[in-house]
């Protein structure tokens, strides 16, 4: 199931902590209520985004998915800016 989103950020090829750091930057450009879709190849990003949403007061993790794009695993995160 895929979510509607307002902005797409492709973090494929990035390693810890860059998917998180850059997603945070991208989320900062959104209006509250808008959704950022992040695509990452870093397996650790799954737990990292959960941790981020748990700690930060301004984002909510709507859902996470695992896809296969051209034979490579892609971890997709939907992050909503809430404040």
């Amino acid at each position, binding site marked *: 199931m895929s979510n509607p989103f307002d902005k797409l950020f492709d973090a494929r090829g990035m390693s*810890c902590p860059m998917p998180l750091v850059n997603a945070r930057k991208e989320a900062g450009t959104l209006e509250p209520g808008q959704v950022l879709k992040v695509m990452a190849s870093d397996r650790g990003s799954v737990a990292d985004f959960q941790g*981020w949403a748990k700690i930060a007061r301004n984002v909510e993790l709507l859902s996470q998915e695992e896809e296969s794009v051209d034979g490579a695993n892609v971890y997709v995160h939907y992050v909503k800016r809430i404040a």
Partner: protein
Amino acid sequence: MGTGIDTRAGEDKSRVEALEAKVQELTQRLADLEERAPEDRVAIVVFSGDLDRVLAAFVIATGAAAMGQQVSMFFTFWGLSVLKKGSEFSGKTFFQKAMAMMSPGSSLELPVSKMNYFGVGAKMLRSMMKEKNVSSLEDMIALARDLGVRTIACEMSRDVMGINDSELAEGLEHGGVASFLADSLKSRTSLFI
């Protein structure tokens, strides 16, 4: 009859006053508690000048900053090498010159904590990181700055080791143990690396 009503009004009044006093006391106590409560803050002491340890410190610092934490990094002793932009020798004592000669002139010259083999190990680690598309230490230092991470150089160890201000990067803060503790005591997490 009139006296009965007066008595009751008097009782109500004293009850309200007691309640007001209680509310005031609780408000004060809450304010005191909030004052002491930890904030969304992380304080990191970077004592080590080893590439691998310093990398770990910056991964945590940039990650925490991205998660909305206020991050302070205190560089002391060997960690000061991370902040250096070059070594100077003139005007230094014999020991200070020897120290400058034997310590890294910048973050690019940091050794690894294990298997360094006169710098070959550090070069190897850097190229392996590049292969895996992990940001270099220098990129992470710049990123930390962009994210608003506070960088504080320990004044005492800088002085002891004879490192001049002009050998260090611009835009640093200088401080002592109290500036670390002031942040650390307000932080949920404090690390010594």
